[in-house]
């Protein structure tokens, strides 16, 4: 009995940290609709800043708590600076474009932190006066954790007062409910947003600084927390503080007791829980239905156009690409093969985002399933390459068929997080099912058949398959299927009133996108000769999103350009410098600021203004 009580208390201490970080995220999202990918970075830098301050001043209780507060405020200032310097310029860009900007910030912060504090893990001082433990029913329990448990509700209470008893809080709530109306009534959204970013990032920093007495500060903290914070936000219901609190409590307890019952499935427990909650409750535990799905690109003004001469341009490009092996070396061919595969991967995601208005955070699931589909066929059935390649889109398509049925019943960020949940489940299966997938050591020896073993031959094969699939995807975009999909994206209600079964079209699009990504994954497996669970992991999904957003979501060619630019940049910068994340992050931030509509969006904007001027 006493053991269970202490276990529950441990869960509460975990929940407190989780709540501090995710409350910041939910406030920022609720008001600004920004998917702040850099939230975990503020948590990490908050921990590092807290560590430095606590090392110097943390000898006394006043010094310790002063240091924690100072670190939190400093993160608030950094957050406000990010809003003024970067995000403010992106409010008129397509939704989610800010995600790309904050992703750039994540990369920059990772390298700057490593540069400033060095690579070693830092173990900070314990909180003065709270070093020991007390016995609760004969079980020792750390005092500091008790303080944390108290801090969670305290912060919730303070935030409640702030939002319900101050003018600023009222304005923030007004803006959360209806941004346009609030600004129509004379509320300066820019200042409000700066304040909200300050508050949100300060909370992340507070959560980070409070970890110093509990655990070592490391460079991996940012990614470890941000996904979990998103889970809490979505499970609780976006924008709902009480929901975030409730979700933190539940997830904290789930982790505390989950390891007793199923110590082996800790990898996926949280995501299983999120999937179940989202399947049962469309808007999380305490969230409210939104009138407009928040991430639908409702502001898209220019309809897709087939463009003149696109076909001949594409053929010319294809001919040019096909001629490359005559002049290029092996490495250039390998790089190009990867670019072509990733272009298909990005294009398949674009089918969902650009046409369907469905932002997927878990697209790597289908890429990875395709790769594993091929590899498993080779490994366990001894299948020849053509058969294994054919298996890739089939397995990925089947996976997408099942997951899609659940996912398309949700919209906006709930859809995105449900796709992420499925991707994580697929990842953990690949990671843990040793007998079949080889676990994290992957499957080796997935090399092409002898006729395609040459670099040039495999490149041509890739080019043919990807080119053909891309042509199909483009056909789909401009076929009635594509129009129906876009109708559902722009106004689901109107589309349904004219007899379009929006969900079914979205489901079909999900399967189509999944199969296309699966083919890309199968080709990737044979290009690399091995598959690993990293192919289904979060960074792979993020890469796909970055490619699509970088190119611009309003054009069919956008994701292709995004894939080319992102992959070439990354591989080139990586071979030039160890600080490639800094360089890549700065380039992304600069791109976002210079091309707020993506690269291709910018180019077509240039062209149309040129045409208009001539007319």
């Amino acid at each position: 009995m006493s053991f269970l009580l202490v276990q529950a208390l441990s869960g509460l201490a975990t929940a407190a940290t989780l709540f501090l970080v995710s409350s910041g995220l939910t406030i920022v999202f609720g008001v600004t609709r920004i998917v702040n990918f850099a939230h975990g970075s503020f948590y990490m830098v908050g921990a590092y800043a807290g560590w430095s301050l606590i090392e110097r001043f943390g000898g006394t209780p006043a010094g310790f708590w002063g240091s924690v507060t100072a670190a939190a405020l400093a993160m608030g200032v950094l957050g406000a600076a990010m809003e003024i310097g970067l995000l403010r310029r992106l409010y008129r860009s397509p939704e989610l474009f800010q995600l790309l900007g904050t992703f750039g910030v994540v990369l920059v912060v990772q390298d700057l932190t490593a540069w400033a504090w060095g690579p070693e893990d830092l173990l900070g001082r314990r909180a003065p006066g709270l070093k020991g433990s007390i016995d609760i029913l004969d079980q020792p329990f750390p005092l500091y954790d008790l303080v944390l448990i108290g801090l969670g509700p305290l912060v919730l209470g303070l935030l409640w007062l702030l939002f319900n008893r101050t003018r600023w809080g009222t304005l923030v709530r007004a803006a959360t409910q209806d941004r346009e109306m609030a600004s129509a009534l004379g509320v300066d959204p820019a200042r409000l947003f700066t304040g909200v970013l300050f508050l949100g990032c300060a909370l992340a920093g507070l959560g980070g600084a409070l970890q110093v007495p509990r655990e070592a500060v490391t460079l991996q903290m940012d990614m470890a927390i941000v996904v979990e914070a998103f889970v809490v936000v979505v499970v609780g219901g976006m924008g709902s503080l009480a929901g975030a609190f409730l979700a933190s409590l539940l997830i904290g307890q789930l982790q505390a007791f989950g390891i007793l019952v199923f110590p082996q499935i800790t990898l996926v427990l949280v995501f299983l829980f999120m999937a179940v909650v989202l399947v049962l409750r469309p808007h999380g535990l305490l969230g409210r239905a939104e009138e407009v799905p928040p991430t639908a690109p409702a502001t898209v003004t220019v309809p897709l156009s087939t463009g003149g001469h696109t076909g001949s341009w594409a053929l010319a490009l294809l001919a040019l690409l096909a001629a490359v092996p005559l002049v290029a070396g092996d490495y250039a061919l390998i790089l190009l093969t990867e670019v072509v595969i990733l272009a298909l991967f990005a294009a398949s995601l674009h089918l969902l985002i650009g046409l369907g208005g469905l932002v997927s955070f878990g697209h790597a699931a289908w890429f990875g399933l395709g790769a594993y589909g091929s590899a498993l066929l080779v490994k366990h059935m001894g299948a020849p390459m053509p058969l294994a390649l054919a298996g890739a889109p089939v397995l990925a398509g089947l996976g997408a068929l099942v997951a899609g049925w659940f996912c398309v019943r949700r919209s906006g960020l709930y859809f995105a997080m449900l796709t992420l949940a499925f991707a994580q489940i697929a990842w953990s299966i690949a990671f843990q099912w040793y007998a079949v997938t080889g676990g994290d050591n992957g499957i080796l020896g997935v090399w092409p058949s002898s006729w395609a073993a040459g670099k040039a031959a495999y490149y041509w094969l890739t080019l043919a398959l990807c080119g053909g699939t891309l042509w199909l995807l483009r056909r789909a975009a401009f076929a009635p299927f594509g129009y129906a999909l876009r109708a559902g994206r722009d106004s689901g209600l109107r589309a349904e009133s004219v007899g379009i079964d929006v969900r079914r079209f979205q489901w079909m699009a999900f399967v189509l996108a999944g199969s296309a990504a699966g083919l890309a994954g199968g080709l990737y497996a044979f290009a690399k000769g091995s598959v690993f669970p990293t192919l289904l992991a979060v960074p792979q999904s993020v890469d796909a999103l970055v490619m699509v957003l970088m190119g611009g979501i309003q054009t069919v060619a956008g994701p292709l350009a995004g894939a080319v630019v992102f992959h070439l940049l990354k591989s080139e910068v990586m071979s030039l410098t160890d600080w490639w994340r800094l360089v890549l992050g700065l380039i992304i931030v600069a791109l976002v600021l210079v091309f707020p509509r993506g690269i291709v969006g910018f180019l077509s904007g240039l062209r149309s203004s040129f045409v208009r001027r001539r007319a």
Partner: protein
Amino acid sequence: MKHRHPTASPLAKVLRPAALFAAVSVSFCIAANPAMAQSAPQPAKPPVTFSGAPVRVGEINSYTGLPAFTIPYRQGWQLALEEINAQGGVIGCCELQVVSRDDAGKPDDAVRVAQELVTNEAVDVLAGTYFSHIGLAVADFAARNKVPFVAAEPLTDAITWSKGNRYTFRLRPSTYMQAAMLVEEAAKLPAKRWATVAPNYEYGQSAVAWFKQLLKEKRPDVEFVAEQWPVQGKLEAGPTVQALAAAKPDAIFNVTFGADLAKFVREGEGRGLFRNRKIVSLLTGEPEYLEPMKDEAPEGWIVTGYPWEQIDTPAHKAFVAAYTARFKESPKAGSIVGYITMKAVAAAITKAKSANAEPIVDALAGLTIDSPVGPVTFRASDHQATMGAYVGTTTLKDGRGTMKDWHYADGANYLPPDDAARKMRPAE
């Protein structure tokens, strides 16, 4: 033109706030930490002239993914490289050149980088890697492209056994070897009830599996009463410690490391998990893991590690002196691994008298070199080096963790005989 283009604003106006943001972050970081990591000064070029064409080594590691472990490793091989070239290079005629690349912690990036090194940089040998899955991916690439590959740090048994190949050799003692070293000590303990805690991936799982199997062989009376499998990097310290304590074990076998280990130790001390219990722990004695814990480093744990300041053979003392002079910091376990890796590569090339793949592979099989930790042989049977590890007990000295009562466990004594090892490898 009345129409306003959001993209038409001058570049400078757009970039200024971004620059401001960057400047703020940079100045903040500097303000927060005045003692910033300084890069080591470049040494003067050695005044050696070479008569032959340089031999090139392609080096791959997770420099951004795990800098705490890979930067000391890089400094280790840099030191070795400088020594090699100052002494006339390889084969007595040629400069040894290293082209180093980051793999971003991803196996697919590592394979691409390996391809780039082989085709664009024309390297003759590949070396490096830290993570097991990346080591395996590069090993597979090496076999297919017939390039010699000296895997430095990956621990998985598969790289030399079940997935072994002609072109791949591994230096560091494997998971099996280190578990076997610890079992020898664990079997001497009176403890009968054991609990295990290990990160939930291949390294943790095979370490626990070997430990269980080998300990049961020596002590059929022990039982394993609890196991915890935290996610690597995400250990829920409080609940994990509590769950282990609830099983009331006599002793605990720990495989967690890095930030997880620090959390586990802190929470375990706070909750009295280690009171009257023996802890046997893999790798915990390495300075990479002990030093960050400062005066909170656990005492009395039986560990494998690297007590660099106490090893007083002349060869090791010379290594420590050179390393400390060159980098102004003490060596880590990664440093010695990096150092020996590069020395082994150079020795293999010199023995082969060639920069070609097949002679180098033949030279590596059975190659013995004198290293700061003693003689190391790459076994011809399974391509595993006999580099050992230091087994001892952790203790606190002058406010920091170190090892006492240690001995060097030579890897050769913890490997299965040649025939048995050869049987575990795929047929060539």
